[in-house]
């Protein structure tokens, strides 16, 4: 029998408070924190009602070693989104564990030493592991669906501290299976930003899947944020729905940088839609919604302020102008070309500095040659 590992540095009372949005909700899955031996540290003890339902889990890592795990039972609907949310929670709690290390006991120090030795054996240093922990979030976001006739490209660079960007690309469950696009930035940083991101991500996903359009999705999300929490942080976001057959895309924003339409024919790069007010601050919002059509070769480019707010060693900001220049230089290329051009430009601008804020870019490009009409039918 494996030696039981105490869950180090994790205060159950603190964990219960963190889990509260998941344990007190009406239709949410049961979320618990368990130690590696399967003992519940925090969350509802009984999961009897959830027998046979899906179970997903994410390890809470401390210097690369799993010290505990988050387990969600009874997940439904937006599974990918819930998974991302669980991952984000795991990362946030991992940060908590790292903070609590100062209070470590002898036994815990021993446990840590073991994991350090294991890491050395694998030739990985602790810095790399920490980096990996931060990057964990991005990997989930990068799994984009196949949309025949379109290229979907993205780039994500995590900030020094856990930040709050996320994006999702997913097929909506309705006629024609249009593509849902969400890009969002939780303002602020640290644990509270990470927790709000974990909380709001599945909310936005579900809202876009259920709403008649992107503006309504933002309104629904705002209502949940305003009703269910009274935090000090906000979310800025853009939601969009793309109909692959004819390239129509409806876009609505909430306090976020509007996406840019980069025409394939070399025409001027234009902002799509207005900004709208941010989410979580006002009881009611009426986000502007616009519709544009992506012609073959056109690309819709979404980004967070981590792009334009990137700083060079002299303190200058990357800004709108450099962004447009980078896009113009790559105009006519694919969505991947545009994303690569901008992310490279931002990285070169920052020189060696790690980004102070998350940098997130998503591009949706329509292929130049129109495929056969049936190509976009969902398999």
């Amino acid at each position, binding site marked *: 029998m494996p030696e039981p590992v105490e869950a180090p540095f994790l205060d159950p009372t*603190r964990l219960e*408070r963190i889990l*509260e*949005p998941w344990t007190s909700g009406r239709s949410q899955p049961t979320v618990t924190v368990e130690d590696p031996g399967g003992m519940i540290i925090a969350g509802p003890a009984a999961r009897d009602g959830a027998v046979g339902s899906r179970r997903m889990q994410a390890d809470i890592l401390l210097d690369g070693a799993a010290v505990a795990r988050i387990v969600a039972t009874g997940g439904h609907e937006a599974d990918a989104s819930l998974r991302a949310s669980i991952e984000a929670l795991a990362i946030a709690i991992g940060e908590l564990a790292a903070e609590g290390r100062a209070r470590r006991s002898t036994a815990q120090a021993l446990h840590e030493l073991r994991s350090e030795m294991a890491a050395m054996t694998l030739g990985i240093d602790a810095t790399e592991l920490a980096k990996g922990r931060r990057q964990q979030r991005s990997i989930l976001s990068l799994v984009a669906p196949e949309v025949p006739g379109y290229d979907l490209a993205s780039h994500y660079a995590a*900030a020094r*501290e856990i930040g709050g960007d996320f994006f999702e690309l997913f097929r909506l469950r309705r006629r024609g299976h249009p593509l849902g696009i969400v890009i969002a*930035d939780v*303002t*602020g*940083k640290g*644990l*509270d930003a990470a*927790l709000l991101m974990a909380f709001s991500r599945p909310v936005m996903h579900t809202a876009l899947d259920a709403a008649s359009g992107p503006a309504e999705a933002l309104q629904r999300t705002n209502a949940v944020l*305003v009703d*269910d*929490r*009274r*935090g*000090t*942080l*906000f979310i*800025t976001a853009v939601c969009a729905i793309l109909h692959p057959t004819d390239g129509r895309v409806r876009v609505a924003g909430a*306090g976020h940088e509007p996406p840019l339409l980069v025409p394939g024919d070399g025409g001027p790069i234009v902002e799509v839609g207005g*900004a*709208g*007010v*941010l989410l979580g*601050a*006002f*009881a009611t*919002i009426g986000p502007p919604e616009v519709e544009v059509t992506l012609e073959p070769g056109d690309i819709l480019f979404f980004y967070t*302020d981590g792009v334009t*707010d990137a*700083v060079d060693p002299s*303190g200058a*900001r990357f800004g709108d102008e450099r962004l447009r220049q980078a896009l113009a230089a790559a105009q006519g290329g694919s969505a991947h070309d545009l994303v690569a051009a901008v992310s490279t430009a931002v990285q070169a601008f920052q020189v060696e500095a790690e980004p*102070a*804020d998350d940098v997130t870019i998503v591009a949706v490009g329509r292929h130049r040659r129109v495929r056969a009409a049936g190509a976009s039918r969902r398999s």
Partner: protein
Amino acid sequence: MALHTTVEHADGRVPVVVLTLAGELDASSYEGVIATVRDIYANGGRHLVMDISELTFIASSGLVALHSSLRLMRGEDPPDPEYGWAAMRAVSNEVSDATPQTNIRLSGTQSAIQKVLDRTGLAALFPSYPDRAAAIAAF
């Protein structure tokens, strides 16, 4: 890119605290601004002018500082998430409707900052005046 803050006192119809923010308000400095405003309120300040005539940049985290300041000056200390989500819900609904009752005035807002406030809808919560004297006189 650093942020410089100074706190002064002025007398209008009521005693006014003037907090000058010069430079850039971003993720590296927003928590310091919140701490400063918390101190101002704790020391009895009830009317605050934020002189942002030399504020050249505001990131989204800077908006958190502005909004948190608004709550602090209303006597609502924004809850630390460590105290749990219940504490957050217990705070009275701060979501502002059509009639913001605020005791923060902005002075000298530059166009780059105004653009962000307009874009995010927060402009509605922060009455803005061309200069410090006008902002103080507005209380």
